[in-house]
């Protein structure tokens, strides 16, 4: 057993868990954050993507013990209270989800992608950058649209913030 201490969505949590516990199961089973999903067992589908120390990672491929001491943001921690994150809002606005199962991982990956590219994205780049996230419902069409729209919104917000 290991004592795993994490900051999850800004809150400190600590649990004694088996060393073999994956971060995704720590989040889901031990602290009840079931928004992060498991869609495969070969680290490909991306339903489990969370941010660990500021970067998108597949939480099914990290032991909770490896992550211990780190800072995790999950889909539950993205919105500021009632206010959706621009990427969440764009997924709704552009119908970027159907069954919703891949959606948390898609959104967490999109937030990371937009940050890494400083919002300077085009369709080809978004499609390429999404290779670690599989969706079976949408054909990606509206996911791509949503991410491009969110990138535009976030750039505008950044520019507004910079101007103020």
């Amino acid at each position, binding site marked *: 057993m290991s004592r795993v201490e994490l900051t999850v969505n800004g809150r400190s949590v600590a649990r004694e868990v088996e060393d073999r516990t994956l971060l995704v199961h720590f989040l889901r089973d031990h602290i009840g954050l079931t928004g992060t*999903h498991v869609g495969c067992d070969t680290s*490909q589908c991306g339903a489990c993507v969370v941010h660990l120390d500021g970067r998108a990672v597949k939480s099914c491929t990290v032991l909770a013990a490896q992550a211990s001491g780190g800072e995790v943001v999950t*889909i539950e921690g993205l919105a500021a209270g009632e206010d959706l994150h621009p990427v969440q809002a764009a997924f709704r606005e552009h119908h970027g989800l*159907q069954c919703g199962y891949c959606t948390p991982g898609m959104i967490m990956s999109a937030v990371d992608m937009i940050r890494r590219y400083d919002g300077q994205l085009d369709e080809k780049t978004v499609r390429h950058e*999404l290779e670690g996230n599989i969706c079976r419902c949408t*054909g990606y069409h509206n996911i791509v649209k949503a991410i491009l729209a969110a990138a535009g919104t976030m750039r505008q917000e950044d520019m507004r913030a910079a101007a103020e």
Partner: protein
Amino acid sequence: MGVEGIGARVLRTEDRRFITGKGKYTDDMTMPGMAYAAFVRSPHAHARIVRIDTGAAARMPGVIGILTGKELAADGIGNLICGWMIHSKDKTPMNMGQYPAIATETARFVGQAVAVVVAETRGEARDAADAVEIEWEELPAIIDPLQAIAEGARQIHENAKSNLIYDWEIGDSAAVEAAFQRAAHVTRIDLVNNRLVPNAMEPRAALGYYDAGSDHYTVWTTSQNPHVARLVMSAFYNVAPEHKLRVIAPDVGGGFGSKIFIYPEEIVCLWASKRTGVPVKWTGDRSEAFQTDAHGRDHVTHAEMAFDGDGTMIGLKVDTIANFGAYMSLFSSAVPTYLYATLLSGQYALPAIHCNVRAVYTNTTPVDAYRGAGRPEATYVLERLVETAARELGMSPAELRRRNFIRSFPHQTPVIMNYDSGDYEASLDAAMKAADYDGFPARKAEAARRGRLRGIGMSCYIEACGIAPSAAVGSLGSGVGLWESAEVRVNPVGTIEVLTGSHSHGQSHETTFAQVVAERFGIPLANVSVLHGDTDKVQFGMGTYGSRSGAVGLSAIVKALDKVEAKAKRIAAHLLEAAEGDIEIRDGEVRVAGTDRKLAWHEVCLAAYTGHNLPPGLEPGLKEGAFYDPTNFTFPAGCYICEVEIDPATGRTAIVQFVAADDFGRVINPMVVEGQVHGGIAQGVGQALLEACVYDRDTGQLVTASYNDYAMPRADDLPSFKVSTTETICPGNPLGMKGCGEAGAIGSPPAVINAITDAIGTNEIDMPATPEKVWRAIRASGLAEAAE
């Protein structure tokens, strides 16, 4: 149309929980004292169980119980069934092999459940499952359906001689032979419709709970049709009596057909909960999904089409072998018969059709309905044939299709279906325009200058949806009726709850169904909620598959709304002292037509519940239910055009344009409909280019058992799609809807393959058209040298 009513592009009400991580899927459910199940599965494609030793496993940490088929049989749990009877052409019934939820004597495919361990944690359950010792006697495995029916092949089930489940036919073979006799041209093709794994992103899961205090059972499960699950689990599997069993399908992460069927795992979780005294949860991992979710397609077909001298189709004959895998899954028998052969007329006025289907056992995962179910296979046969014929006849593919389109409705095909409406030329024209079909030669020449082979292909599909009229399917062998039920509960304050037997696992019912209700009474969408997926809340339902939720499920709601409206009008007429016929309800008001006498909607609702002043003899309350049984199938149709560019050096195909023009009848929410088409196209493109379920022919091992080997379409495999709709109203249901869920997967595979064969100048390539297959075809044609 109101801003939130029929035809409006309304954003989804269900989205908020999904985008904030608050969706509630089966694996998200927990209960106090809950234990975890892990299945011991057959590592062999075909083997006899000599001995199972659970002794060491039972002593492992955390183990609560280990159960095998022996206990299952002792408790009288019944075998899994196929619910659609098909008779062979010699009138004998299909040969259904025994399919126990946990194998007792023989395992017939890799992954078949052999035992289950219930333990305190996931890890402990898996550890103990690994420690269960099984002595096997391996038997020869048969993977290839042609080998399975070859002489001397080892029989997989005792009652299925030559591994044949049925040998079925439809159509008039004499008329077809006569047509071929007088044909000026005959086009022949041999096709394989590749086996697919559905791959809904949420793996199947179940949480079973037996409450000994009240002798009541509850199971949360990943189901597209919880009421069917309850019916089958009680009536056939004897797990629990129907009135003491609650089946809940909460948020479900995609289905595509694979979650229609009632699988061993949910049966076992419920049964094991009673056996062990604790709630038992099983969550499949992706490897288990590959091995145990019902697969789709898997046909081997020879087809011939006869033409007269001017390109008119005069006859079609089709011979198909359908691989059913090791057992007959719940609806398997209907897929290559009444959902396949009955669609072989396509959009064409074919006077004579004959189709023969042999269904075959092999030592592979059971095969059943997957998005489109039979209709993609029919469309693939027809549209490959037509494109090939056009090339052989030297006609443009569009022209050959146009010449043979059905133009008057209703149209009776030679294979049962009676098409009610359509305008195939309209969708063909719309697609060709959107694709700039005429500009293709210039684009091809430009691509050639870049060293790329460009091709264009089309596909004009038809499908039968809205399944289905109960009496009709009953006469064809279905064990159930395929109506739908609904209940509309108007609350005293005028808000409305709609309970539907349809189930949304991505289809957006919570939004689109509410749109119809909101429009009817002119109330805000926010005042309507849609409930589904719980047998304790919804009285009954047949679930969601076959693009039936709109045409059948919504029709039931409309019927219930009619009753609510009639009663509300009766109450309002009484209160307003007017004739019922003069009352109209719109914009949230109930008024006497042509006057300013009116009541607010909620005032009428409240009056219904106070009961202070109702028409004499009228019951209080405002809640109505309805069952809707469709009068016919619905017939969505459309035209898809795909344009590809191929890198001749590697054989890699890139889809550079994809156009869809669909006729779905009336559209409730265009945004949702477009999304359905996008997803369907992606699955169809996946089938055409990427996806193949491959077994090792010698060992029967599933080679493509993970995403490392099964190529799922990713964002960079696909372009953005150009989709549009044309509209002919379906005369068979009150809203005029046809259905849109499966079209994309049905129409797209032949469009992609026709584009590839156009690019590389051959008529032959099988799906998936992998880079190596395309490279080999190019090399054979000599185009590779030109490109280097």
